[in-house]
């Protein structure tokens, strides 16, 4: 199977993580001369002399890459001069929102895409299937930026059904139930944008692999044994369609990050993406660096977890290794 050859080793992930850390260590040191002054002169943030010295010291530490690594694991990622807070606390505050938005969108789009793909493949033929596949292919061509702006214009600004920005109503002392509803109401537009971006791919891939699988002989056996159709469909057939889905998720996660960044920024959702956008806009270098590094390592971690999931899903992998 081609999917098996795409599996990576733990070593690759460790190397990738080290490479990211090293790039983040090296890049500021490659810059010529007094880049701190130059960079912050064009920024809205004004540093006083003491802060400037601190920042320069942060970038010219002489304890080498080892010291940098140690600092990284101690969560001392520098100080944000735009938000006047340590970088690590800013990131950890934004992280739950990103996990809620991205995790939710991925989970739902995967589940929905999987079920829809399996069911469509099961009932092959007919105009409904053709129309569905056509629509999904078109939808696949619309970037998050396009759907997001349209949803924002129509549902938030024109109709006013949903809030246009933020993740919760500020300073509202509400009961827990109201609070959850409030969060959901803020979530729905960015969530829908991401859902619309992820769903078509999951659907098309599941359907494609399912059509192939449905031709296998072992399904005939399962049916001949008299197993109920639902069991044949999901326990026997669809299980195989899950594998390419997991593989695709891992391969595209890094790419999908870009879309999530745009969506968060667009809806001013207070996650890592918006934080990164603000940090870039204000040229807050330690913060940019911290977020980039943190989220890259997070992506690597998710990919590593996926490997474990994959081995669990595919018993052949266990025997192969």
């Amino acid at each position, binding site marked *: 199977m*081609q999917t098996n*050859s*795409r599996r*990576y*080793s733990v070593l*690759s*992930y460790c*190397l*990738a993580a080290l*490479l*990211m850390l090293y*790039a*983040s260590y090296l*890049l*500021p040191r490659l*810059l010529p001369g007094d*880049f701190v002054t130059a960079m912050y002169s064009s920024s809205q943030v004004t540093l006083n002399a003491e802060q400037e010295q601190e920042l320069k010291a942060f970038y010219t530490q002489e304890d080498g890459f080892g010291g940098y690594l140690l600092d990284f694991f101690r969560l001392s990622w520098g100080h944000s001069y735009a938000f006047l807070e340590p970088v690590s606390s800013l990131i950890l505050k934004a992280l739950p929102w990103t996990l809620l938005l991205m995790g939710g969108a991925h989970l739902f789009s995967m589940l929905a895409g999987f079920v829809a793909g399996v069911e469509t493949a099961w009932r092959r033929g007919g105009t409904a299937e053709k129309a569905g*596949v056509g629509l999904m*292919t*078109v939808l*696949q*061509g*619309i*970037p*998050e*930026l*396009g759907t997001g*702006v349209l949803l*924002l*214009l129509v549902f938030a*600004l024109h109709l006013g059904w949903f809030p246009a920005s933020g993740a919760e109503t500020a300073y509202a002392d509400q009961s827990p139930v109201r609070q959850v509803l409030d969060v959901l109401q803020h979530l729905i537009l960015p969530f829908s944008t991401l859902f619309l971006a992820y769903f078509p791919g999951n659907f098309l891939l599941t*359907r*494609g*692999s399912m*059509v*192939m699988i449905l031709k296998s002989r072992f399904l005939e056996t399962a049916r001949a044994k008299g197993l109920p159709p639902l069991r044949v469909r999901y326990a026997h057939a669809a299980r195989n369609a899950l594998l390419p889905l997991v593989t695709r998720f891992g*391969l595209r996660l*890094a*790419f999908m*990050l*870009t*879309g999530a*960044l*745009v969506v968060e920024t*667009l809806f001013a959702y207070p996650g890592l993406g918006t934080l*990164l*956008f603000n940090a*870039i*806009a204000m*040229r807050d*270098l330690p913060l*940019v*660096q911290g977020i*980039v*590094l943190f*989220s*890259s390592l997070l*992506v*690597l971690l998710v*990919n590593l977890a996926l490997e474990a999931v994959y081995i669990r899903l595919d018993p052949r992998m266990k025997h192969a290794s």
Partner: protein
Amino acid sequence: MHRELGRRLIRDPWFLTGAVLMFLFAFLLAARPWLTAFDPHDMRFQPLSPPSAEHWLGVNDGGMDIFAELLKGLGNTLAFGLLAAGVSLLFGVGAGLACAWFRGLLDVLLMRIAEVLMAIPAVMILILMAAFFRPSPLFLALVLAALTWPSIAKVIRAQTLVLKGRLHIGAARQMGASSLYILRRHLLPELFPLYCIGFASKARMAIFMEASLSFLGLFDPGRKSLGMMISQALEYYYLDIWWSWLLPPILCLSLLIMCVTFLAVSLEKVFDPRLKEAL
């Protein structure tokens, strides 16, 4: 073999739609000097004026003609995408062919590098570079290409390994053909369908990246781009000229990505026999 595939391709509605869109964009870009007389950087018009016979899509907040801006942005976005995709393809094909043909240490080494690169989120490296160095778009396109070649290399390598075992390659080798000759005359042309698929999918990714990064403000603010136009127009969404300012770049970007997506989907469908029946 390829000629028959080409005929099937032309009959595919997705390919036709994609090709029509592509010609439309090519025409828009080629005819730019005749379509608009304005320089997109010219700032002397009445800011925020609605569309008129002179300014087809009106004027933005900085007093620049939006239609001229749109065409320039479209060109920049497209150029970034095509360049990144082209260089990525070049790297990928070179690495994939070399790995499959020479095997040994080179194969192990390059494939290991490929795995590491595939695990790294390219966008994060681009953001880091853009934030620290403020490099030219050209440089960023090259960095993107340097980060995204592995997936092409893997496909090319796998297919080359299959081809390598075929009889006609063995026959060519028997007749005393050199490695270089076989690579150039047999393998390179035979892998042609894979180049198309790889190029289309990389172009899609790169265009999407460029739009997103420029939307986030990572490029030089003087450089026109669809993403930047969207982010500027969004600030004035409440004015009723949004449909002539905000909508055109969004439509352009969506159609552009759709065009490349359709081409990629269609190419993959026609060229990949495994998918023939699935779609």
